[in-house]
């Protein structure tokens, strides 16, 4: 359509009308094709990015979600991967279902060995929600085949993703076993976490208040009320579907412009524009853009940070050293804007806890004597270091537009049906009049013709309705 004026300027002589139309069609077709290919490529990248690979590790966690939620999440995988490697968002850790503070190091290690997985194998291709549903239901004949084809492709892609994830898990199991039994395991399998790293991570595991499983204590914290939330739950929180403003039932929404889409609220305090902040652990910096490989991580190589368990006067001094080391580390900059002295102090109590545990938890040590972490107070959604749900799910705008388009289509269809029924009715305006007309003046043939048309219309509508119902059913089952 955009080409129309151009064509007129060129005039009919320069190009035969038919050929120019053909050319338009061709370019449009090529454009569509290219767009489609781009879409497929994006989809491919997205699913590839959702595979947890143990060699892609940051501070003992990973770049893709574990799979606590059955449906594949909808977030922008590239953005999240980047945020994690930059230590602006907690990595996706493998969770523990249960955790007991009274476990000894050895017990904890056994639990970790037996329970840590890269992913939860509970997804199937059937589970995935295939979007589109009733988008094009009035033009179904034109696009049905294409849509079916797209669905098949997506299903195949998901199957490939699941297979790939299983392969990754097997590789991880194998390498972990090898690293454990062979002599130079840690050099041959640098991405397999050392026992020290595992203990440092899970020694003080805490429960995510949304999925109820245990993670290392370096979680994301809500920007407003400072509640912990794991990255997997965070990437699943998104805006509600576009909806009419309050008090207008969905079926009655006719003005597409009235649809609204609001940023997600904080799940804990309902503050609008949910966002989190993350402060990376001070003692642990392994894997991608880290200071050492996960296999090399050892708490003893960092003597400067170990709080010695000697009794007596040396204690305050070592504690001071630990704190100062923590602060200097935080100043060395690991990319987080919250790496301030304060944050360093706040986190150092957790880290000191780790150290104590690694020294086999002897004696109630300095941990409790450290300054209580200072309350940070709430931050604005636009404050540096705050990651909002919109930042990792930027597609809400497209969703809103397509929901608006859907309503516009629906009301256009309703208008068309309404108009056609007016034509059938002819001059008569009210139902009662029409019925009276049938009885008194209408010939039998006329009546039959009108009735037949009405039945056809009713059948068409009910077919459309049934189709829509099936679509939504399928979509619901798929979720």
């Amino acid at each position, binding site marked *: 359509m955009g080409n129309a004026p151009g064509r007129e300027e060129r005039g009919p002589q320069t190009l035969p009308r038919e050929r120019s139309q053909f050319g338009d069609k061709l370019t449009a077709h090529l454009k569509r094709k290219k767009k489609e290919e781009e879409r497929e490529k994006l989809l491919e990248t997205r699913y590839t990015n959702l595979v947890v690979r143990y060699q892609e590790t940051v501070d003992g966690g990973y770049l893709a979600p574990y799979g606590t939620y059955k449906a594949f999440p909808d977030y922008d995988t590239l953005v999240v991967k980047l945020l994690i490697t930059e230590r602006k968002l907690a990595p996706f850790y493998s969770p523990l279902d249960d955790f007991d503070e009274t476990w000894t190091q050895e017990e904890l290690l056994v639990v970790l060995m037996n329970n840590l997985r890269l992913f939860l194998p509970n997804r199937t291709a059937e589970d995935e929600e295939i979007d589109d549903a009733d988008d094009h239901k009035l033009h179904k004949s034109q696009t049905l085949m294409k849509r079916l084809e797209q669905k098949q492709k997506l299903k195949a892609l998901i199957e490939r993703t699941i297979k790939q994830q299983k392969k990754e898990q097997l590789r991880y199991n194998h390498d972990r076993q090898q690293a454990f039994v062979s002599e130079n395991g840690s050099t041959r399998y640098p991405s397999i976490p050392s026992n020290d790293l595992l203990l440092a991570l899970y020694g003080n595991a805490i429960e995510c208040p949304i999925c109820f499983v245990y993670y290392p204590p370096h979680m994301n914290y809500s920007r407003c009320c400072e509640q912990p939330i794991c990255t997997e739950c965070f990437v699943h*929180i998104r805006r*509600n579907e576009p909806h009419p403003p309050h008090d207008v039932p969905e079926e009655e929404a006719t003005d597409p412009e009235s649809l609204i889409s609001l940023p997600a609220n904080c799940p804990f305090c309902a503050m609008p524009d949910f966002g989190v902040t993350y402060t990376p652990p001070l003692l642990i910096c392994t894997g991608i853009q880290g200071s050492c490989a996960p296999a090399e991580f050892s708490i003893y190589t960092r003597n400067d940070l170990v709080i010695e368990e000697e009794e007596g006067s040396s204690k305050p001094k070592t504690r001071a050293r630990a704190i100062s080391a923590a602060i200097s580390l935080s100043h060395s900059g690991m990319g987080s804007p919250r790496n301030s002295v304060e944050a360093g102090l706040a986190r150092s109590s957790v880290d000191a806890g780790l150290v104590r545990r690694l020294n086999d938890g002897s004696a109630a040590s300095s941990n409790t004597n450290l300054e209580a972490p200072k309350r940070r107070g709430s931050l604005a959604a636009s404050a540096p270091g705050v990651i909002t749900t919109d930042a990792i799910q930027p597609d809400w705008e497209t969703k809103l537009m397509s929901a608006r388009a859907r309503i516009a289509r629906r009301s256009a269809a309703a208008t068309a049906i309404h108009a056609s029924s007016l034509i059938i009715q002819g001059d008569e305006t009210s139902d009662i009049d029409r019925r009276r007309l049938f009885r008194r003046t209408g010939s039998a043939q006329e009546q039959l013709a009108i009735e037949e048309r009405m039945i056809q219309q009713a059948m068409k509508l009910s077919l459309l309705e049934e189709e829509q119902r099936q679509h939504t059913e399928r979509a619901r089952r798929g979720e």
Partner: protein
Amino acid sequence: MSSLPKRIIKETERLVSDPVPGISAIPHDDNLRYFDVAIQGPSGSPYEDGTFKLELYLPDDYPMCAPKVRFLTKIYHPNIDKLGRICLDVLKNNWSPALQIRTILLSIQALLGAPNPDDPLANEVAEEWKSNEALAIATAKSWTEQFAKEGD
């Protein structure tokens, strides 16, 4: 059952180990996402001494979306319709994944104690509530007597 999320398992366990007074929720053996719920009418309300049965279902994407809850016992309340559907913001747009079965049922119990005829689901009941509150409360009491006090 391996596909049941840990959260649902833990919530169920905690409902048993640390029950909410006046509320019970028991999962079906064959579908652990489906709960039989009983809520005691709050004291001081027209539903006092009544036991109201509800059904609660946790959809696949729970806790990212709200549980589906419906009254099975007939009840005269401006925010609960003939089919037992409940008009409560936290069951709809104000749902948050930090809420739980426990908190949702407490909210419903609170709704019994504080009917809100200005945001009605059962229009006739709401009208009655606004025009003649005493009569509406009497009706609610008699319904409680009639439907919410079967011996079992």
